[in-house]
């Protein structure tokens, strides 16, 4: 009896150990195979896909040196602000791949080009498949700068960081791209357009003592913008005083009581995509903008606001709040803030001029009233 039990236990132990050795063996083999693959992948040097002869060295907006081939023939554009500049310089034929937002913003220029992901989430395979010479994105994490540099530069693809969403950098970026693409004349003209307008507005508002007090609101109800944001930059460049400038958070959501207490002189609203899916560009009648305006002024307590009583509440479509279009928004804002001072300024014709630079058709309704 006992002997049989001993045999059974021994058999079980043997079975357990056999199974354990089997599992361990399998796992070990698998591990070695995977490591081998890893070794083959990691250790072999990859030759570059592109090897240029002529090289131009520039410093881009990330502060790094970039060696660009000359002439540049194949560009992938991951952000629409640079896309605008390229169109303005007449270099759109050099673009071989774009991000979906670039395609949408500059339609129909890039309609036939393949999409390669966005600046924050680029599709490396799609980019590599096109074998570009240069990839234009934003600097920092928002443009996936580090990842792009790490993965594409060993293959010979250059990463150029162009932060053309920052108003103060736009003229520099225009000239940089003009230099790189050998379109310096066009670049001067386009950069000059921005600089002249900004200077004109700045000269007229610099002497003002009593600045217009402005509450600027974004897409979300009661979300305003403080110092360092684009909206703040626009309000300030137009000579206004952003009431939320000192708030600790970039995009604070303020309490309605604060707005009533501050009683701004002018209220600016950025009408978002939910109200205007196609943007101001797609509008043929001002009704959607008017609806946003209507909702705004009928907010509880807003009937008492100075801005509402004096009819100084303005709605501006979202597609004007970014890239080169910021200059148009500044012109509109300046005119709203100081109508007498800027009686001769015509923002819609300035807008037409801008769109003309890009080679696109102008049209659409962007503000209400």
């Amino acid at each position: 009896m006992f002997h049989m039990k001993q045999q059974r236990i021994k058999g079980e132990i043997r079975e357990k150990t056999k199974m354990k050795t089997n599992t361990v063996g399998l796992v070990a083999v698998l591990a070695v195979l995977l490591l081998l693959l890893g070794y083959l992948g990691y250790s072999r040097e990859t030759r570059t896909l592109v090897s240029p002869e002529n090289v131009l060295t520039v410093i881009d907006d990330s502060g790094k040196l970039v060696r660009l081939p000359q002439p540049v023939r194949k560009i992938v554009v991951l952000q629409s602000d640079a896309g605008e500049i390229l169109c303005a310089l007449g270099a759109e034929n050099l673009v071989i791949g774009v991000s979906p937002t670039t395609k949408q913003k500059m339609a129909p220029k890039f309609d036939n080009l393949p999409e390669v992901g966005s600046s924050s989430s680029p599709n490396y395979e799609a980019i590599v498949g096109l074998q570009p010479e240069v990839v234009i994105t934003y600097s920092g994490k928002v443009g996936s700068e580090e990842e792009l540099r790490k993965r594409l530069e060993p293959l010979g693809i250059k990463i150029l960081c162009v932060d053309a969403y920052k108003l103060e950098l736009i003229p520099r970026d225009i000239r940089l791209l003009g230099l790189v693409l050998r379109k310096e004349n066009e670049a001067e003209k386009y950069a000059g357009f921005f600089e002249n307008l900004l200077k004109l507005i700045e000269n007229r508002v610099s002497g003002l003592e009593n600045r217009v007090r402005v509450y600027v609101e974004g897409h979300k109800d009661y979300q305003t913008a403080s110092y360092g944001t684009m909206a703040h930059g626009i309000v300030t460049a137009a000579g206004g005083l952003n009431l939320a400038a000192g708030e600790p958070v970039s995009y604070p959501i303020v309490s309605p009581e604060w707005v009533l207490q501050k009683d701004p002189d002018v209220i600016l609203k950025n009408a978002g995509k939910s109200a205007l899916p196609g943007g101001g560009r797609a509008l043929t009648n001002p009704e959607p903008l008017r609806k946003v305006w209507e909702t705004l002024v009928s907010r509880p307590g807003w009937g008492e606001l100075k801005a509402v009583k004096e009819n100084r509440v303005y709605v501006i479509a979202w597609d004007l709040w970014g890239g080169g279009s910021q200059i148009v928004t500044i012109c509109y804002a300046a005119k709203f803030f100081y109508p007498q001072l800027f009686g001769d300024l015509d923002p819609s014709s300035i807008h037409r001029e801008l769109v003309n630079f890009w080679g696109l058709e102008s049209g659409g309704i962007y503000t209400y009233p």
Partner: protein
Amino acid sequence: MGIEKVYLRYTRSKLLLILILSLLLFFLSLLALSVGAVNLSPGRVWRAFFSRIFPLSSDHLSEVIVWELRLPRILLALSAGAGLALAGAVCQGLLRNPLASPYTLGVSSAAGFGASLGLVLGLGVYGGEYLVVINAFLFALLSTFLVWGLSIKKGMSSESIILAGIAVMYLFSSLTSILQYMAEPRALQGVVFWLMGGLYHATWKRFFPVFFITLFCFPPLLRYSWDLNALAMGDETAKGLGVNVGRVRGVGLVLFSLLTAGIVSFTGTIGFIGLVSPHLARMLVGGDHRFVLPCSCLMGALLLLASDTLARSLIAPTEIPVGAVTSLLGIPFFLHLLMKKRREFWP
């Protein structure tokens, strides 16, 4: 004699199942290698793959795409999927709770907070390109210490660990929300992407750490299979069988958090793999942890590889967040499990 034969047949059939799953995984990997944003014919893919093993020639573009982009991503998906599933299986076994996963114990939320600190404020323990990864890892470990500290006073019972885990999860989630509120829209986008998790940044450098962590955590956790089996019958029963419940839970928790932290800090928080894979494994091989643990690894690897391959190829070149695809793939299975309600797989 009869019982021995039955038992042998029982274990052998489980092993066969595991073998079949492994083969399935292998073929899925082959398929995944041929699929991508750039249309490469299978012939080009194979030539490119073998060109580094044998002296074959292949066009350079295919070689780059296969070896620099697709292969590391596939291997990362396999390692991360296996690791997350293993972590899920272990904590479900340790805590006797079918809802236990890296999420419910707060490890994922803490890693997310660490990542957000790096992405939004640029704050971190160690700067440079691994700032976000190291932050995520350290905060994930910190959350485990918190959970440990909170529950050790209550004798490391499963209820106390779960409650502490949920508290820690909410703590770090709200802190992350505050960071998101403070963030510039562009930094915010980075945070959102990280929290959704993704393998699009897969490189060989990211594969090796994930692979090694999973590899090194597997044997010690497998050794605890019998203890986990005993624990499944209740703390008192397990203690009666000679299992040091406190120590098993403690060590298991440490290994679990190392594993999760190590993976999540590289891939972002990919949900559902850790939760669903152990259940799927149990449906196939029963409740014995000697089989559940390896089978969970296989299921996790399968699930993540399938999801990631779909995520990057369905509407290429746009990438669907892999967390969304894992949920969509995992939910039908989950519901199936719910409908079937086979209680014998869950003690």
